């Protein structure tokens, strides 16, 4: 099996698994919506305040939602032995992991991107900002997932692994948050968001290419 068909196999397998366990993806989405709803409750319903914190709040909530989705990436496969079979199969592991990560993004990241305009309306953000919001999340959430995949591969099977993943990921998430929320901030300030988006896009490409290899190395360290 070449790399591309290995990727396709892992993608199809994880997507069909996700289709049979729809609650998992819905939980992440539900968390995103609820987390966004907490901000107005905490700071008050004044429209200008909500507009001010809206972009940042949406991005923080999306970041935490991705973090919430990470434990499912490898844990179930590790528990039922699928992961060991993948490692022993002699198939290109980075390709298999890339398929798994793509599937995970389609199941958890893509819904966040799609629902974000609705939540942006609840912060009374201007309609012109919606495409930019979706684009920044479209470029940013894959990076979060890629970094998270490495961290969850490193902490595989450890006690308190999900807390540890949070501690490992959050410092590394800082640039994504800065550029993602910064794109919206600068657009609302009347500046161009192009530079932020270009950096996010570059980060996404690098992460997508490099992280499957690092995650594969991390998995081998953890399982062997």
């Amino acid at each position, binding site marked *: 099996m070449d790399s591309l068909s290995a990727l396709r196999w892992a993608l199809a397998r994880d997507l069909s698994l996700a289709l049979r366990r729809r609650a998992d993806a819905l939980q992440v989405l539900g968390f995103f919506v609820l987390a966004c709803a907490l901000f107005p409750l905490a700071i008050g319903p004044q429209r200008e305040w909500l507009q001010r914190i809206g972009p940042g709040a949406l991005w923080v909530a999306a970041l935490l939602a991705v973090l919430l989705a990470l434990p499912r990436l490898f844990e179930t496969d590790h528990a039922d032995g699928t992961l060991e079979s993948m490692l022993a199969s002699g198939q290109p592991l980075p390709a298999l992991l890339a398929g798994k990560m793509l599937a995970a993004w389609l199941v958890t990241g893509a819904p966040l991107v799609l629902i974000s305009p609705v939540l942006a309306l609840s912060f009374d953000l201007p309609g012109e900002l919606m495409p930019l919001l979706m684009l920044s999340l479209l470029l940013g959430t894959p990076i979060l997932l890629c*970094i998270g995949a*490495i*961290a969850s591969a*490193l*902490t595989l099977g*450890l*006690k*308190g*692994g999900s807390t*540890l993943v949070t*501690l*490992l990921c*959050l*410092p*590394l998430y*800082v*640039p994504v948050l*800065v*550029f993602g929320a*910064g794109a919206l*901030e*600068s657009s609302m300030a009347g500046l161009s968001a192009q530079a932020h988006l270009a950096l996010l896009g570059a*980060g996404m490409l690098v992460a997508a290419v490099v992280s499957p290899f*690092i995650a594969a*190395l*991390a998995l081998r*360290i*953890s399982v062997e």
Partner: protein
Amino acid sequence: MNLFRYAAPQSFYPLAGRLLPWFAGLAAVLTAVGLYIGFAVAPTDFQQGEVYRIIFIHVPSAWMAMFVYLVMAGYAVLTLVWRSRMSALMTRALAPTGALMAAIALYTGAIWGKPTWGAWWVWDARLTSTLILLFLYLGYMALVSAIEDPVRGDRAGALLLLVGVINVPIIYFSVRWWNTLHQGASVSLTTAPKMAQTMLAGMLIMSLAAWMYTIAAALHRVRTLILDRERHTRWVRQLHALEGRSSSRRTS
């Protein structure tokens, strides 16, 4: 003499023991001299008054915090590529000192910031990236302590360090950019007036002291780590028996 001999814990242990007093002694002497210059000889700053003197501790610890992370990443490469045992132990030994240096830099920065900027904490680019650096150290320490298998812990920690060190410049520049976007010109160290000769001398001596302290602390810690890791080997048992005998002789 073959330097690679010291890549084996068994031969590094006595070497570390011999070097340790020298580095610890140098650290003590240099700290005393540096603090004397810093607090007694260096002139009062005409803008900031006496409060500036915190830089004699603040700047060396901030430098050390960044440098130790780089050194750890260097050891991480050795661990991952050559699977050398000593480098992994050195990485583990350095981490607490690096975290300590970052914490000291943040703490002294806050003390300096209150009278100078009027706030214990400002979201300045340097402060924020030092805070993130502290969390990178804590993350590394949490990961290696959570993994019971020593080899897995060594290698997982090394990989995390490498991912971290690639990200450190990105984090630094993103935070700097974020800061310039949000607030205009804030007070920064780069605009500080030119330093007097004695101030510079005091700071350099304190930096050297921080180096010596870091090496001494790492050597001390790595000796414990070696004994712990190699406790089932014959040489550690012999050492233990030897030291047990000498200590019992002393007490009798």
